[in-house]
């Protein structure tokens, strides 16, 4: 088998991080690093890059493009996984340049209405999952419901 892959996990804190931690078992045997906002909860992570939580500030967005480029040059990830939110946008954008595929899981907080980040990621990510069947109708055919960390609805 080839060497283990390196996975860039990117998410905000709060529920996004809670979800990211719950799917870690899918990464077993591989290497993970995080790109997150600086918060009490994210400081407890190992292998993490933390940036200021000023997502709506365009200067910070541009800075994140530079930061992610540097990090990707060093880390050379093979896959990006995100549970939201907008912190994923600069990561997946730079991922396009480095030809790193992305999996975006719409946060369970989005029940019936898409998030702004979700609308962008729907077109940018190679795979796009939602966690409530109610939300499928709001997206197009690229969106999939394959089970949920919160909902009991069966995956089709």
């Amino acid at each position, binding site marked *: *088998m*080839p*060497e*283990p*892959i390196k*996975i860039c996990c990117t998410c905000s*804190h*709060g*529920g*996004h*991080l*809670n*979800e990211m*931690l*719950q*799917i870690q*078992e*899918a*990464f077993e045997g*591989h290497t993970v690093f995080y790109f997150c906002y600086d*918060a*009490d*909860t994210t400081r*407890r992570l190992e292998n993490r890059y933390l940036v200021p*939580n000023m997502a709506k500030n365009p200067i910070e967005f541009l800075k994140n493009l530079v930061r992610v480029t540097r990090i990707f040059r060093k880390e050379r990830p*093979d*896959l990006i*996984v995100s549970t939201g939110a907008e912190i994923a946008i600069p990561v997946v954008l730079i991922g396009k340049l480095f030809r790193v*595929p992305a*999996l975006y*899981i719409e*946060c*369970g*907080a*989005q*029940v*019936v*209405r898409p998030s702004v980040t979700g609308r962008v990621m729907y077109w940018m990510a*190679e*795979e796009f*999952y939602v*966690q*409530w069947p*109610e939300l499928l109708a709001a997206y197009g055919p690229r969106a*999939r419901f*394959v*089970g*949920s*960390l*919160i*909902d*009991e*609805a*069966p*995956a089709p």
Partner: protein
Amino acid sequence: MIYVTLGTMFLDFKRLVDVMDDIARDSGEQVIVQLGMSPTRPQHCAWFDFLPREEVLEIQRHARVIVGHAGIGTALDALSVGRPFVTVPRLKRFNEHMNDHQIEIAEAIERRGWGRKVMEMSEMAAVCANPPAVKADYRPNKAPLIGAVRAMVERVHRDRKG
């Protein structure tokens, strides 16, 4: 003991802190509040800002009722310990959140019978005195989602260089 959790949101949630403080004072029951970044401090409750997740879950396992903002992390943890769960959506008009998406979460939780949504703080004392039933067989459908993530990891692994 009532456990109250405001999550990691950086905006104040004074409405909920104040009503829970009144309940602690009037009922004499212990109320423990996870405040996070909410600046309003209660007078009659025990409180902390953040604790390691395992310690927080341990407190929740011993709670008679869990009252939380309707954040998804809060919901995931509260549902996982199987205690009566009351949600209060943070609302934009009180500057408690940037939008009103927590109403959708609270409604989904109520629709599926996992907990009770409270919009009016005047109802809170009665709801805490008579909390909603726990859905004993609550079981989120995690395995297929984690399996799908694993499948993508394996596909990338297989395709890598050769």
